[in-house]
């Protein structure tokens, strides 16, 4: 017994299916699933016959500028047709015809027009509420910038209760003539979108290493690049980036700007509220970070610039002067006698003055180094330990209230991405899932209240 895995089985079926299509095309088999095609390809005798009122076959798909090999939404698709006898001199009532993509009616399109010069029915491809499912089938889960589509035409039935059926195809053996590449993303739109998306991601993420976009910033004396990452801010940013990118993706794929679902808004609201509540907790409670801030301010450090001033200027300038004064002192030796009321020479008096300055400089240097040492000691607990550690741990190690926020955010984020990619729409999360996110955020804020006092 041979066990065939799922992938292998799919591959075998795909190969068999492809082979059958080739054989069908060559031998004109009467496969019931295949669209019926005109029996033969007649000669071109349009000059001798009266104009036909009904196209019989599709002879080509014409591209608008003759260069582009694809047609997309909001563009015009020209389906060149011919009469039953191969005549091109048709007298067609274009409004009677409907378009079929891959055998499915493209509903709700504006009435097509007939272009006599190109002998084609011109359809304006529009995405509406009534046909968006078809477009989702066609454009969803894109792996390339175009997808192949087979075109057919059908006549609109007299009765509104009857659904039109595809009846006009390419001639048998020329099925390729009724195929075209449906544009998912145009090169211009995808370029603009890429610039917008990557620009925004750069603003948010790349610069996050150097600023406090994603970091706490509770202690302004710490340089931004060393501040701890904030889970609430990261979560809010995560949903913002995701929804923004999804919006851009959907817009360039469907040209629909009403794609943000109410659930997406609720998600942004939950993450925003969580971040605001977290900031509120930080601000409302007098936390160790606040105490550190006050302590550093009392040492003269109101911002990181004050720390830099100490490192770059105050200590080096005094050390340089100390070296100079010590050199000068060595030239004034010997030191005066350590006896009170002793008469001193001018050189000894100068030695005393320089020596006092040396002592003072040593005190000042030590003072600044001690303050700097205190600064380094006190900010240490508030320095970043790396992104993942920052957002998943508190002072006691891995914090479950942080971990659960992270996990649920990632899971729902993945669901969101897959939904947008596959369905060309922002997913409709159930109220249960949204409640889960809300509970997760509330739990985080509640535990954070205790956390800030640790």
């Amino acid at each position: 017994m041979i066990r065939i895995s799922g992938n292998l089985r799919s591959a075998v079926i795909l190969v068999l299916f492809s082979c059958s299509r080739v054989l069908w095309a060559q031998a004109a088999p009467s496969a019931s699933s295949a669209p019926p095609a005109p029996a033969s390809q007649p000669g071109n005798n349009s000059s001798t016959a009266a104009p036909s009122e009904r196209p019989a076959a599709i002879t080509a798909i014409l591209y608008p500028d003759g260069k582009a090999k694809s047609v997309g939404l909001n563009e015009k698709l020209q389906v060149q047709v011919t009469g039953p006898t191969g005549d091109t001199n048709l007298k067609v009532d274009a409004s009677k015809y409907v378009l079929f993509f891959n055998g499915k009616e493209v509903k709700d399109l504006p009435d097509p027009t007939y272009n006599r010069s190109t002998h084609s029915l011109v359809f304006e491809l529009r995405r509406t509420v009534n046909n968006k499912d078809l477009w989702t089938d066609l454009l969803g889960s894109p792996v390339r910038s175009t997808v192949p589509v087979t075109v057919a035409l059908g006549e609109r039935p007299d009765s509104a209760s009857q659904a039109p059926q595809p009846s006009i195809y390419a001639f048998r053996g020329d099925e390729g003539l009724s195929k075209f590449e449906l544009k998912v993303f145009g090169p211009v739109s995808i370029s603009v979108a890429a610039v917008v998306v990557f620009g925004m991601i750069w603003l948010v993420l790349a610069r996050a290493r150097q600023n406090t976009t994603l970091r706490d910033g509770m202690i302004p004396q710490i340089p931004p690049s060393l501040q701890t990452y904030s889970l609430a801010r990261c979560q809010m940013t995560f949903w913002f980036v995701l929804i923004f990118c999804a919006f851009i993706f959907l817009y360039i794929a469907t040209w629909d700007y009403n794609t943000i679902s109410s659930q997406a808004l609720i998600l942004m609201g939950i993450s925003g509220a969580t971040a605001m509540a977290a900031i509120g907790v930080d601000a409302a409670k007098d936390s160790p970070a606040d105490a550190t801030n006050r302590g550093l301010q009392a040492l003269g450090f109101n911002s990181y610039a004050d720390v830099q001033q100490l490192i770059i200027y105050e200590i080096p300038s005094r050390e340089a002067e100390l070296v100079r004064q010590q050199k000068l002192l060595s030239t004034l030796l010997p030191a005066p006698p350590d006896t009170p009321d002793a008469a001193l020479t001018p050189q000894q008096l100068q030695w005393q003055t320089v020596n006092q300055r040396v002592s003072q400089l040593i005190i000042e240097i030590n003072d600044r180094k001690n303050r700097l040492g205190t600064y380094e000691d006190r900010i240490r607990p508030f320095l970043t330990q790396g992104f993942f550690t920052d957002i998943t741990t508190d002072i006691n190690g891995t914090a479950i209230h942080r971990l659960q926020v992270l996990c649920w955010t990632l899971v729902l984020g993945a669901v969101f991405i897959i939904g947008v990619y596959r369905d060309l729409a922002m997913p409709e999360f159930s109220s249960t899932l949204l409640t889960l996110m809300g509970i997760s955020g509330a739990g985080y804020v509640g535990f954070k209240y205790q956390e800030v006092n640790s």
Partner: protein
Amino acid sequence: MPDKIQHVVVLMLENRSFDSMLGRLYPDDPDFNGLTLGEYNTYAQTRFGVWSGEGMPPSLATAPDPDPGEFFKDIAEQLQGDPTAPCPMGGFAANYATQKPSSDGPFNPRSAMHFFSPEQVPVITQLAKSFGVCDCWHASAPCQTWPNRFFVHTGTSRGHVDNNTFRIPFPAESLFHRLQKGGRSWRVYFHDMPQSILLGDLWLYAVFHFRGLAQFLADAHTGNLPDYSFIEPRYFSDLFLNKIPNDEHPPHNVLYGEQLIAQVYNAVRSSPCWESTLLIITYDEHGGCYDHVVPPPAVPPDGLVDNPYGYPFNTYGVRVPAVIVSPFVPPGSKVRPPVRDDGLVYPFDHTSIIATVRNLFLKGSPPLTQRDAVAPDLLHALSLPTPSNAGPASIDATAMEASATEVQSRAVIAPNGMQASLSAAAALLPTTPPNTAAQVPAPAGLPNTQYPTVAIAHANATASTNRFLNR
């Protein structure tokens, strides 16, 4: 039963006189040398009696505020006062009123006469009543903090009377050093910067013996207390930890000191070492707070006089509170010094701690100075045959946490004398612990540091200390 005592723990707080803390401990007991409420000082023809401010909220347990004078010349004025006045110890109000004007507030002479009622300081009161209180324990000299703290450790201040004249490292043999040589264990437990780190003979091994208070709590909990423990309170406001000093130094709120006393007592009381531990709670000096007992004459420790006043250390300082805690001390004891074989009675002073430790752990070891040679020890206070005085199982101190505003208000002001001296001395600590005696620097005078705020003084003190102790 002294031979059952294996651990001595000393907690020394700051700058409170006996009367100011325990003066009304036993108000109806004629055998207790406390306040009668008839004591007063006169200043500018006005009489200022002792007062306690009953009903004052705990947050105001800071009197006297501002800090009274505590230099030698201040104390001399406090002890002398108006020679024509009937009350001895009559110069506290006058000295206080004539302090150099301060931004901390007016020097109302009444403040110097303040005392805390037993209800206002419930922790030390409860311990004093549950175990023993000494109403004749004097500071070793009528001097500032450092001379008296050096007396605790070395039996002398080598002639110095004020903090800022010392040369560091302090070159006198210490009790710690004696214990080290005798193979006994000891530790100093501290909060920010221990004053005892200035003892020169500890610098070679200080790094092994100085620990934070948390270590004391752990050592007590696990029954690993050393033979001798000396606990130093928090001297500086710590903005980073949001902590007010718990040293009780005026005008620091005494209730934080009460919390520390309770913390230490509870740790000892719940320790496996409880039955073999003697806990001594005392203060270094009176700090300008009124006491009615005239300091008696004292034996000069070593004949050294290194002060501009020519003071020969022939008197004790003002009385300070001292509470003796042990299950061998009968409840309600009033611990008094015994009459010696020669008929003399010397009061307790800080060198009584040296005498006690020496007699417990260093039998046969000679005294450090002539002062501790005559100092009465505390062993006779351990008069119960068995450790039967359980005392309170634990003590709850007034629950009070310093507000950020309160800490800030204590951190951005000019440092007091103790804080200024400590932070200045910190600059003399080596950056790394010396490994040999030759690496211990020669004693040097305190540098002329004038840190503008407590916060900056604190940063300098703790940074240098932590560096020196490899913390």
